[in-house]
């Protein structure tokens, strides 16, 4: 067990015994990671904020159910990913407020800001364009594929940890990731051709 996992475990045990300060320490440790994980999945800062807060509240409420065989961070990520997926499904049922609209809106705002600034270098603009392309391609993936990719590349989780978070086997997690990569390549090609 790594040192981080060990110290997390001690804090979890203390929090389970009713020590709110110990849980507060865990919150501080993971607040940024969970926030950006939620954002990577829903691509909306307001939603990410709600999801991350909800993830911490839920994990505090369900802490007694946490089996200490797994890592606390993996368990917390799982809660956050599930909440993000629920949010994604809710959004999908409301087509007028789709996730694609969110991305377009963010892109539009960014472009306006960039035009207004007029001082950004070509390199920055190119990076920003690439980032937007990847964000857009990611949002076209299925929730499991997106979660697998985000966890692997933006949150440095191993295939085993991804499997824990997604509640599937390690080989299924690898399949999600492989398909995600293939689909991303397809989407990115399509985007580049349309430009």
């Amino acid at each position: 067990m790594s040192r981080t996992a060990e110290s997390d475990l001690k804090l979890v045990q203390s929090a389970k015994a009713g020590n709110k300060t110990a849980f507060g320490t865990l919150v501080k440790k993971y607040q940024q990671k969970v926030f950006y994980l939620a954002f990577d999945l829903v691509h909306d800062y307001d939603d990410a904020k709600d999801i991350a807060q909800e993830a911490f509240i839920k994990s505090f409420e369900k802490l007694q159910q946490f089996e200490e065989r797994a890592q606390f961070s993996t368990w917390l990520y799982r809660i956050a990913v599930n909440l993000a997926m629920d949010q994604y499904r809710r959004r999908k049922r409301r087509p007028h407020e789709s996730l694609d609209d969110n991305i377009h809106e963010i892109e539009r705002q960014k472009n306006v800001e960039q035009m207004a600034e007029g001082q950004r270098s070509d390199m920055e603009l190119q990076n920003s364009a690439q980032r937007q392309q990847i964000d857009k391609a990611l949002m076209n993936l299925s929730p499991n594929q997106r979660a697998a990719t985000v966890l692997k590349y933006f949150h440095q989780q191993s295939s085993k940890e991804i499997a824990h978070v997604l509640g599937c086997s390690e080989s299924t997690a690898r399949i999600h990731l492989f398909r995600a990569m293939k689909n991303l390549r397809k989407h990115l090609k399509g985007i580049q051709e349309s430009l």
Partner: protein
Amino acid sequence: MKSCPFENLLLPYVQRELSKSDRFRLLSHLPTCQDCNQTLADLQTVDSSLRRHQREKAPHDLYVSYVEGLETRFRPEPFLKIRWRQLTELAGKLFLSSSPSFRLARAFAILLVGVLLGRQLFYPSTTSKINAFDSQQTATTLTKDDIQFIADYVVQSELLLLTIANSSADEPTDDLIYLNKDIAQTLLYKTAKVQRKAIALEDDVIIIFLNRLELVLLEISNRDDEEIRTTFRDIKNMIKESDMVQKSRRLQHRLETTLAESA
């Protein structure tokens, strides 16, 4: 279309997670498979794009409000509350845990409390006896002969203590005659007698004084001739630290008063 059996090795290869033997197998296969080469190129392109991907930072105000929201909800407990909880946790562990070490600790704690309570109930504390010494309660319980015997002894020992207390270690060795082993041994013999009387009479004040005096006498009777000055300094310190001269005077005064009253 049926996919190549080597396809499932491509992603672990790109992500540098492939074992040495599998990597060797794949690298041997690649020159012979066009599909795998194409897929590998695609995967590498996406892998490199994703690795280079840098997410923009969240709006500052929004992130601050998020952190503040969490802090409010999971605010640390006040210090005293934490200490109190730790104390109750420890007490809970001690009294509820079924592990053998905790059981043993519990039994020991109960035994200790029992012994302390019993002592408090059946034996008055030493402090109260010392106070009793000053209020002349203990001495009145002694017989006249006992008092006389102890009074003589205290006078002799006070002389010795006083001489040592007023002397210096720099004096010639011959002048340190009061460190005579024979005198000390005679007094030690008497000390044992007085101690027996004091123990029979349960007089802690005298017992404590005698114990200290006994130490002094033992030091003298066991002293090494070559280290007489060191022994002298040790004894002098012992007398000074225990305030033995004053104590012997008080004891002497009390005994004299008691003898006068009984006469």
